């Protein structure tokens, strides 16, 4: 798989974004066309990479791209394995949905939307592809820089305020990232992830503390980006303030944090890491559970849907972290399934919220909640005109249907993929592969069971409240005017959840195999460090 397709997810948005900088701000049509073409092409590329990564032969499965044709530990490599390809596909799908959605109106709300969006995609894709720790830093910086700009898109005090918090917190985290990378480089002498994995078991005992300090600091940076409690307080306001297409693509950003943890933790501190094996596992596990709990509390305490969605991001992120922290291959497979499902659902929800809220008077939520909290006025409230149903206008019907879809995916209820995901996680946690039937299941599994089920219940309550308030209680509200290109992305995302449910067998198989290779990364290490062909064309210094 050493063709240039692997680097296309990085180069294509770069060129598209750069080309759009040359265009005048008024040429919206052309910009929209470029952006859309690039994003759709990314979907195609990601699918091609995914297919390539799904073959059984490990030599062909793991694509390694040596930038500048430099051999592996020295130059930068891109590595496309199943996980990377999966994340690329997810990103490109969310990207396509967000771009299509934005074309209805949001891309006009500020300068350079499409360029920033393409750069964001470039950063995210780069982070998923790179096999080099410092290069990872670069791409994470890129996606953060682009996310700063996109967050401010549409402006307004709420966005600027949330945006400044976001920038400050993430800059601080980036500093930690850099410190962590430096420490690890100082101890291990390499930046290549595979090389690191190969070197860590042989690190001298007296240096191990330093290495773990570096890894720990690095971990703090990633966990902040993944939104682990108590380093997640920046997240709800930020996501709630972002404009809908931006919030929708932001759903993947916390997953970048989760991805890095998944990739690096299993690669560097897997079972093969010698004395450092499973370093920090409990922190992930219990931190993740605390995050789920906090997220669940937050969803209940949210008045508006945007905040509810933002807290759902925390629940999803926390679930991922806790599942990774279990350190069991089956749970990891379930976590990957969950990742796709919950990201699609939350992303669709962020898009949906604005459509639903359109044409509602602001503050309606506040009133409704206060009424619920303080009044028993429901008893006196007489229905307006007896028991004759209202025909919900088709738009509201569609929106309502999509809302139900999002709600069941996020809460993990049937019939969509959220339920399967939760089942996959829990059944794997309760029936670990290495455990003989009837043996002891770790306490953590039971806690995970309780946490996941309760958080799903909390989400359900919050969603029901929000849904009833929006769709049922205000029967005289103005029906929002919604365009097809706004509705279609949501429908597509939810359809994908449905497909994920129906095709759960193959999808789960793919996830499980991905998890297997993550938990035994020797193929990865071997492929990356395979001696590259020398550079025959180099002129030398003569």
């Amino acid at each position, binding site marked *: 798989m050493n063709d240039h397709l692997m680097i296309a997810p990085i180069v294509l948005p770069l060129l598209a974004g750069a080309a759009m900088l040359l265009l005048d701000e008024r040429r919206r049509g052309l910009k929209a066309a470029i952006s859309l073409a690039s994003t759709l092409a990314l979907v195609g590329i990601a699918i091609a990479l995914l297919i390539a990564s799904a073959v059984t032969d490990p030599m062909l499965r793991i694509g390694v791209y040596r930038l500048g044709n430099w051999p592996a530990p020295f130059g930068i490599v891109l590595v496309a394995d199943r996980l990377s390809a999966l994340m690329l596909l997810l990103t490109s799908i969310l990207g396509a949905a967000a771009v299509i959605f934005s074309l209805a109106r949001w891309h006009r709300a500020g300068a350079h939307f499409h360029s920033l969006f393409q750069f964001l995609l470039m950063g995210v894709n780069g982070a998923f592809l790179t096999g080099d720790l410092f290069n990872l830093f670069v791409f994470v910086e890129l996606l953060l820089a682009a996310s700063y700009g996109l967050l401010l898109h549409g402006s307004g005090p709420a966005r600027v305020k949330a945006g400044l918090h976001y920038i400050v917190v993430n800059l601080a985290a980036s500093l930690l990232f850099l410190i962590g990378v430096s420490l690890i480089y100082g101890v291990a002498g390499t930046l290549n992830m595979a090389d690191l994995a190969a070197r860590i078991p042989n690190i001298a005992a007296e240096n191990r503390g330093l290495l773990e300090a570096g890894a720990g600091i690095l971990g703090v940076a990633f966990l902040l980006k993944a939104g682990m409690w108590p380093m997640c307080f920046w997240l709800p306001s930020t996501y709630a303030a972002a404009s809908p297409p931006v919030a929708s693509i932001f759903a993947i950003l916390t997953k970048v944090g989760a991805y890095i943890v998944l990739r690096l933790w299993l690669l560097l501190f897997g079972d093969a890491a010698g004395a450092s094996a499973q370093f920090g596992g409990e922190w992930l596990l219990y931190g993740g559970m605390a995050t789920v709990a906090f997220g669940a509390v937050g969803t209940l305490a949210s008045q508006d849907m945007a905040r509810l969605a933002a807290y759902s991001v925390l629940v999803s992120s926390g679930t991922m972290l806790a599942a990774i922290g279990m350190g069991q291959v089956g749970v990891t497979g379930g976590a990957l399934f969950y990742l796709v499902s919950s990201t699609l659902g939350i992303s669709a929800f962020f898009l949906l919220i604005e459509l639903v809220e359109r044409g509602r008077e602001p503050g309606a939520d506040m009133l409704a909640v206060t009424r619920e909290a303080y009044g028993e006025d429901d008893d006196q409230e007489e229905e307006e005109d007896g028991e004759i*149903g209202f025909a919900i206008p088709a738009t509201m019907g569609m929106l309502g249907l999509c809302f139900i879809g999002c709600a069941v995916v996020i809460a993990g209820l049937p019939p969509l993929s959220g339920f399967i995901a939760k089942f996959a996680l829990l*059944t794997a946690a309760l029936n670990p592969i290495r455990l003989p039937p009837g043996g002891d299941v770790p306490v953590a599994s039971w806690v995970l069971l309780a946490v996941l089920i309760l958080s799903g219940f909390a989400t359900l309550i919050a969603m029901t409240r929000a849904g009833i308030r929006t769709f049922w209680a205000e029967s005289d509200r103005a029906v929002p005017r919604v365009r097809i290109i706004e509705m279609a992305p949501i429908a597509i995302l939810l359809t994908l959840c449905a497909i994920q449910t129906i095709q759960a067998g193959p999808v789960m198989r793919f996830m499980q195999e991905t998890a297997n290779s993550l938990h035994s990364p020797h193929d990865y290490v071997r492929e990356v460090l395979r001696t590259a062909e020398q550079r025959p064309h180099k002129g030398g210094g003569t």
Partner: protein
Amino acid sequence: MPYESFLIAGLLLPFVGGCVAALLPTNARNAEAWLAGTVALIILALLASAYPRIVDGGVIRFTVEWIPDLGLDLSLRMDGFAWMFSTLITGIGFLVVLYARYYMSPSDPAPRFFSFLLAFMGAMLGIVLSGNLIQLVFFWELTSLFSFLLIGYWHQNAQARDGARIALIITSAGGLCLFAGVLIVGHIVGSYDLDRVLASGEAIRAHRLYVPGLVLVLLGALTKSAQFPFHFWLPQAMAAPTPVSAYLHSATMVKAGVFLLIRLWPAMGGTQEWLWLVGSAGLITFILGAFFAVFQQDLKGLLAYSTISHLGLITLLTGLDTPLGQVAAIFHIMNHATFKASLFMAAGIIDHECGTRDIRRLSGLWRSMPITASLAMVAAAAMAGVPLLNGFLSKEMFFAETIEVHDNSIVDQALPYAVTLASMFTVAYSLRFIRDVFFGPASTELPRTPHEPPFLMRLPAELLVVACLIIGIVPAMTIGPILHAAVRAVLGSTLPKYSLAVWHGFTPELLMSIVAMAGGVAVYFALRPYLLSGIEGPPVLRHINGRRIFERVLVTVSWRFARWLENILGTKRLQTQLQLLAVFALMAGLLPLPVRWAVTDYGSASGFDPVFALLWAVGVSCALGAAYQAKFHRVAALMLLGGAGLVTCISFIWLSAPDLALTQLVVETVTTVLLLLGLRWLPRRIEKISPTERSAGTIRWRRSLDFVIAACAGVGLATLAYVTMVRPAPDSISRFFVENAYTQGGGANIVNVILVDFRGFDTLGEITVLGVVALTVYALLRRFRPAPESIPIPEQQQAQNVYDDRHPDRQKGDTLKDAMATPALMMALLFPVIGVTALFFLLRGHDLPGGGFVAGITMAVAFIVQYMARGTIWVEAHLRVLPVRWMGVGLLMAGGTGIAAWLFSRPFLTSYFSYVETPVIGSIPLASALLFDISVFSLVVGATVLMLIALAHQSMRSHRTPQAREARTREAAPMKPAK
């Protein structure tokens, strides 16, 4: 097509039908009814054709692989019990569809109703046909969802909304418990397959997770079947249209709970826990439901409590933990479904024709609607357990079962008396239903004049009542085989002896029936004065309103408590978040150290140089000073930062890193200027924190805490850095760079070769970051409106203006112009000089200190200097800079350089270099890396200048007239999507 696939066809058909139904026009009542009715009939036909195969204990299975990795297949399994339930679901479903066609008003949106109804039918079939427990949970939750949507069908009605929400929350909470319970069962058995679970009863009961698993499964079943203490959702659900109540909330969905109990009884029953948990829940519900039902004033309320009571009866039968109990339970499920559905339909007809269903207002309806009255009377008699009706038979079996000795506890001994008492209430409310509604004087003040409904609306109830009669009179011939098949499916081949005869002789249970009848009539007449008083609900107990308690708890826990917790566990403050981040980083960095860090001799690694130390002392004090002054005097802090930066720069030179020093120097310069430009617009420091907010002590404590954290973080980081740097260097990849920079990279300047070649990809990313940051700054500042206090022009400028105003020969701004005249001239002259320097840095970069980045920033300095000297307006009038274009070109070029390698079938960014002979200069090196460096240059110039312009334009904006500013503020408000 194999015969088994009729199962999947039958399961999918309602869902497909539901989808089609949703697409029909709003008022297509007839088409919807035809569609739904046809679906139900087709499934009924399929069921009928399957009957011979299940009647003798046969099981029809259909399995397709779904998620083999998780041991979850789409597995359908139909035995006699499932067949009986399926027939019930589709049969009553068909009747309800027919009924609903006439019940629903023409203005009700039909598609929503029928599509949800069909989907519910599918989900319900899914439950009973599931051959896999997870799949059962899947459909279980679906029925909760559709029940929610159907209860809330008339959502403009607040009661419907509340009822729907309560039902959803209770039943889906139960569903989640069931999910957890099933996971535990699956863990015990090692499979979720129903057959395997049923075969592993011994293992399940012996496992130490049996009790938690049982409790969770029971929570699922009991909530669904509205058992005490979760019963209160069912009366609330009566806000649904009556067909929904008849179908979901009496005949089918609420039976899912008892279905599950009976289904799992062979695996999980037969223990003391089962007897007590299930039995007591059933007994309490049976008694309470019957008691409450008597006191309802709403017809549907009465039927709802009666349903609760009957479900309690069935649960109690299951809980008695005997095979015969299960037989009676199954039998009563069928009987209850028939008479209760017809009663609901009758109640709906009354409501429909009279405009009310309040028992206090209804009276003497027998005169105006004799047929409906007869139907209701027969059904109510069946409910009361009158002989020759089906209710009598199962009740007899029930009584017989309660007389049996189970564990011989006090409760067990009191059981026959308790159930007889409860049955009196059953008789009483049945009697009340008949007598208060149909007899007595004709009611006068009804919203509509009552008359018989259309024939087809009555037909479903008629069919059901006929069924009650036939089963009641000739049970063995009619229902016998079906019951036998169902019982056999549950209990296996060893069946208990039961008889379906109407007459068993004079038995204790007959005596109980007679006592219940007589007592019921007595109770009714005894309670009449109270009932006529018009009070809804029983004395005293009516004040305990389950729904209100639930609402209070829900609001308290899910809202107030959650808000409180959110405030405790979270914060919206940036400071707190940063504090936490610092503390965590500190912990992460320091915790691993003491554990494995053997202190080795690091101290004397290098010689101590007093000059270098002095330099660092200066640098450190600058940094500390900057931190100290950051809040109090920003300009001073900025200057001190510059000092620290300079020391860093000198340190680089000291340590022989000229490239870094050069970069540091130019970056330092440009950032200082940009920050200075930005300082102007920062809000003023809030000098005094109002004492009401926080006491001085708190402030001091906070500050000391911050100081400690900051100091620890600083010292910790310094320690880490020191330890890392003085320890023996590991075998690092850096050697490769040193060795290969010239031979392979074609450059003598290793740093530059690393930047543009070895790790050129990083550089590509970083310049993109820079570009994006510039765009962000631009986007932010484009709509930035300064704080009110920073709008007035600065003091110095005011003084100058005052001076200029006083002198008639001077114009505003002259003083500034005079003062800047000489510097401006010099700076203008510097422009080409700096430009050439930049070019110089750019070209020599590959071999000597320099490179695209430094060159770009140097070039930006040239622009900055012009802005400083001449002001924004002058510069932009004379010099057209298009920074965004520069950036775009830079990025495209960088990408293009990388892609160019593809033409030679090399990976992205593979460099190429050679020497070109030129006539005059001689041999000059030409590397593709130079092109890359030029793109870096272009981007850096563009990005820096864009930020500069964005900042510089602030000063122009704020001087415009206030009116214009106001207008702009309005337009800068957050984008509201246009209506």
